């Protein structure tokens, strides 16, 4: 309550004295924080500054600035009733700033501090664990799907982030036996045919050199052509495997983004203002 009063007073004074933008307001708030000697009150002022930053609509503050200020908060001066909000915001901000380990730590603290069973929490948990731990992300997703089957599409994100071990062996074996066939089997017909043609031409050239008894030419050209075309196509077969069917990949990317957008619209993950 006190914090809100402070924020409102400061806000009104600032607006009264001169038409101010967010940076000017933030600077005024920072001056108050700097002048405050009581750490508890300083923390409250920092919370008021954060509240103001989060409530800006016309002139949104960048997330890194909010995250930085959030990190300056001293947890021991936050009342226990407000801790879940602090953990939630820190978790969300850390996740958005790609500070995954910090996000995980605050998610754990949030779960300990509250019995939140909302879909938002499960969705945030899923997003936090997605880059860290596939099993935990899967577990969160299962919980989410149990409540809302429309979220099943989120499995695409897990598959994309943690692709299943691919069986490249048969393709590589085919490429080793008949150059270009591995690429053709992967769907790259043009590349495979070109590779086959180049390897056949190389083999004919090397055989011709053998017949003409051009030993050094045989060794040098042989090494160059084998390295360039034969080993090259093996390497290409290996490299192209995960990115095969690029059109399908682009479609999947769009589908992933749509799924994510739908879920966020359904269960918005907002920063919470302190009660």
């Amino acid at each position, binding site marked *: 309550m006190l914090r809100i009063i402070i924020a409102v007073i400061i806000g009104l004074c600032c607006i009264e004295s001169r038409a101010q933008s967010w940076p000017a307001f933030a600077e005024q708030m920072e001056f108050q924080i700097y002048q405050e000697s009581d750490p508890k009150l300083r923390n409250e002022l920092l919370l008021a500054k954060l509240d103001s930053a989060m409530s800006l609509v016309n002139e949104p503050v960048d997330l890194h600035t909010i995250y*930085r200020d959030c990190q300056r908060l001293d947890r021991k001066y936050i009342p226990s009733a407000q801790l879940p909000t602090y953990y939630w915001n820190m978790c969300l901000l850390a996740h958005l700033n790609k500070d995954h380990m910090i996000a995980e730590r605050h998610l754990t603290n949030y779960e300990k501090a509250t019995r939140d069973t909302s879909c938002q929490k499960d969705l945030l948990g899923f997003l936090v664990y997605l880059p860290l731990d596939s099993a935990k992300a899967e577990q969160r997703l299962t919980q989410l799907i149990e409540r809302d089957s429309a979220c099943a599409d989120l499995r695409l994100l897990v598959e994309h982030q943690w692709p299943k071990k691919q069986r490249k062996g048969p393709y590589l074996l085919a490429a080793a036996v008949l150059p270009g066939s591995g690429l053709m089997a992967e769907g790259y017909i043009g590349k495979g045919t070109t590779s086959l043609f180049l390897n056949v031409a190389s083999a004919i050239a090397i055989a011709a050199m053998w017949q003409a008894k051009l030993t*050094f030419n045989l060794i040098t050209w042989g090494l160059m052509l084998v390295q360039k075309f034969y080993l090259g196509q093996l390497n290409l077969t290996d490299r192209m495997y995960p990115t095969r069917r690029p059109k399908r990949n682009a479609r999947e990317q769009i589908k992933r983004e749509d799924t994510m957008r739908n879920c966020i619209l359904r269960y918005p993950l907002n920063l919470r203002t302190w009660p």
Partner: protein
Amino acid sequence: MIFRISCILWFLGSVNLSLGQIDLDYLQHLSSQNLKLEHGEYLQRLKPTLTVDSCDYFWSKYFLQYHLTDSLLSKRPLRNSVFQQDTMALLLTALWALEDPYSPREALFSILDSSRHNAVGRLKRIEQMGLAPKNFPMQMELPMGLQESWQELRTYSKKSPLKAALCSAILPGSGKWYAQRSNTALVNTVGMSLFAAQTIESIRKLGWDHALTIGNVTVFAIFYSGNIVGSAKAVKVRQIELRNKFYRNAAYYYRRHYRPVLY
């Protein structure tokens, strides 16, 4: 509750009262917390109350902290007498120039031209040593951490890209050896020998006008000239690498030694 609100109102009053004065402790707070937005806004707020020199001085320090090169240079810190008297700011400018290989070193060091402070002078000499190592003796009074990288740089500065190119022209691969790239040198020597052998073989067995001979001669010529250019480049690249290493070590040493802070 009333007491706290009164406190806040008093603080608000003090903000307005202190508007005309610069609060260095507050600036230090903004700087130490890396509050770029608030720091810039505070300087903006102070602008009407400061002289041009003071204003440029604080803005220069702001740009120095956040490594905004163009903005820093636009404030012409060389002509700013206040900035020129701030040894710590000058030291930090020099350390930034030494540490960051992508910074405009020449322009940043030009800021320090009129400074006569010993510490700044040392860093200016370090820059000169890196730029022209041959002008300085091998044995110099340098801190222990710098001796090794200086001697390495000084020794290597004797090497010339032209000599490396000549070596490669006489014996392919030897230029790389001269540039102290022994692994590449070995690969080049073996590779070029094979190319030479195949070219000679095809000339002897097939004659000059055969397509394979023409192809072999072309390939040999391309690799041979590439090897010469590559050797000269290797010496230059190594020199830059050693210079940057020397600068980095110097910056590391002097940062620990002087412990410069902006505010």
